[in-house]
């Protein structure tokens, strides 16, 4: 079982330009889009992503889906696509979106590729803006004391709030925990 929690916040801005897209069936597929870093065109990208995630493309294999998305979006679009199964994760990253994984009391950055997972592993996927206010040690400590995804996210949001009162522009992140 995979538990997840998403956080989307205007961060004091008039509009929310980032996005989180997900599809549970037939595969657990997530995409975080960093639209607030674009000068224009973020809403069109979001519409495109939305239609892809609601359509039959989600039945595609990871590489095909990744190719389909990259061909559908304007060049320079920043996002990260991940697909999770019971014991593995596939990642494809474009620009300022990152994923970090907590396993064995340590935290590592997830790069492009295929990685093995085990029960209890925790993943946070977010925009560069979200991570810019958090140290790796803080994310790790919060992951280790959290009982679930929302608790983990709330701890991280509290840290960001202590720095900027959540008035730093759009904040977007997704936490995931693998359960037995």
């Amino acid at each position, binding site marked *: 079982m995979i538990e997840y929690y998403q*956080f989307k*916040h*205007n*961060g*004091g801005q008039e509009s929310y330009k980032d996005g989180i897209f997900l599809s549970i069936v037939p595969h657990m597929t997530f995409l975080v889009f960093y639209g607030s870093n674009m000068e224009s065109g973020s809403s069109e990208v979001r519409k495109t992503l939305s239609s892809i995630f609601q359509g039959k493309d989600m039945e595609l294999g990871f590489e095909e889906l990744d190719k389909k998305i990259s061909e559908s979006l304007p060049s320079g679009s920043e996002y990260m696509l991940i697909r999770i199964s019971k014991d593995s994760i596939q990642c494809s990253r474009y620009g300022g979106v990152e994923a970090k994984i907590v396993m*064995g*009391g*340590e935290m590592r950055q997830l790069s492009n590729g295929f990685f093995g997972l085990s029960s*209890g592993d925790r993943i946070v996927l977010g925009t560069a803006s979200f991570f810019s206010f958090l*140290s790796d*040690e*803080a994310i*790790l*400590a*919060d992951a*280790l*004391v959290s*009982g679930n995804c929302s608790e983990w996210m*709330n*701890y991280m*949001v*509290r*840290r960001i*709030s202590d720095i900027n*009162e*959540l*008035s730093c522009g759009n904040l977007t992140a997704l936490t995931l925990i693998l359960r037995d």
Partner: protein
Amino acid sequence: MIEFGILTDRMSELLGTAGVLFVVAVMSFFYIAIILFINVMTFKKKIISKGDDFLLPEISYFLERGKREKQEDSFYISSMPDYAANGVICCVSDGMGGLPDGEVVSRFTTQTLKEHYPLDFDDPEATAAVIKDISDKVYEKYKLGSGATLVLVHIKDNFMHFYSLGDSNIILLRDNKVTLLNQKQNYVSAIIQKMAEGNMTTRDAYLDNRARGLIDFVGNYNCNILKTSKPLRLYEDDIIIVCSDGVTDTIPLEKLKKYVQPQNAARTSAERLKYAIRNKKNKRQDNYTGIVIKMERSFI
């Protein structure tokens, strides 16, 4: 029937013996190879586990009354000779200001933890149960009329579990970065959560001083302990500071690096931190207690 053969009986006998010897030699070769392989793997394993056991915590501490009439902080550090078997426990408890018997509660907390040592490193739930039991006992006696904070770290084999109730501090200095590991359990967190969910900025959450009141502490019934479910990996030159808020109220987190540095021994860092607080000559200086733990290589 007459049998014809090229080999004489003697030669056949010799060839048979040679064959047997050859088989024995091959079997011996494989036997020795297997034994050698096992030995090499065991040796490798020993080397690896030696590497894992390589870090030892060097610990130093201070306990000062500040400008307060009473010392309401209390601490406990388990003995280092037991480190290999049980790890080390360092904890600080700070009696809640403005309430009576803060010093009694903080001392009761650390004393009871001392009585429960050794705690099972691999069972954080059991350690949390001990803390919860302490809290419930304080509640039974004072009915929220007194209380204390508690921060506790349990370090073993390059890993650390931590436990926290209230707003004392567990700080990690790693790679020139200072991180507060345990977030404060006060109403500010609850307000921020609500405001964030409502897509609001959170300035207002910090304006009301009453929001800094503790949600959880030793003395609260059925308290919710902030605790690690899995231990945090430690590395060489990591420094952990377990301290009361009397330390961080005077020396903010971001200034700690000035006094606590990985190139210095824990004793030097603790001394520098203590004198830095003393030299601030804060007229309302709270009790301040700090335990400085430096993870270092120690080849014995």
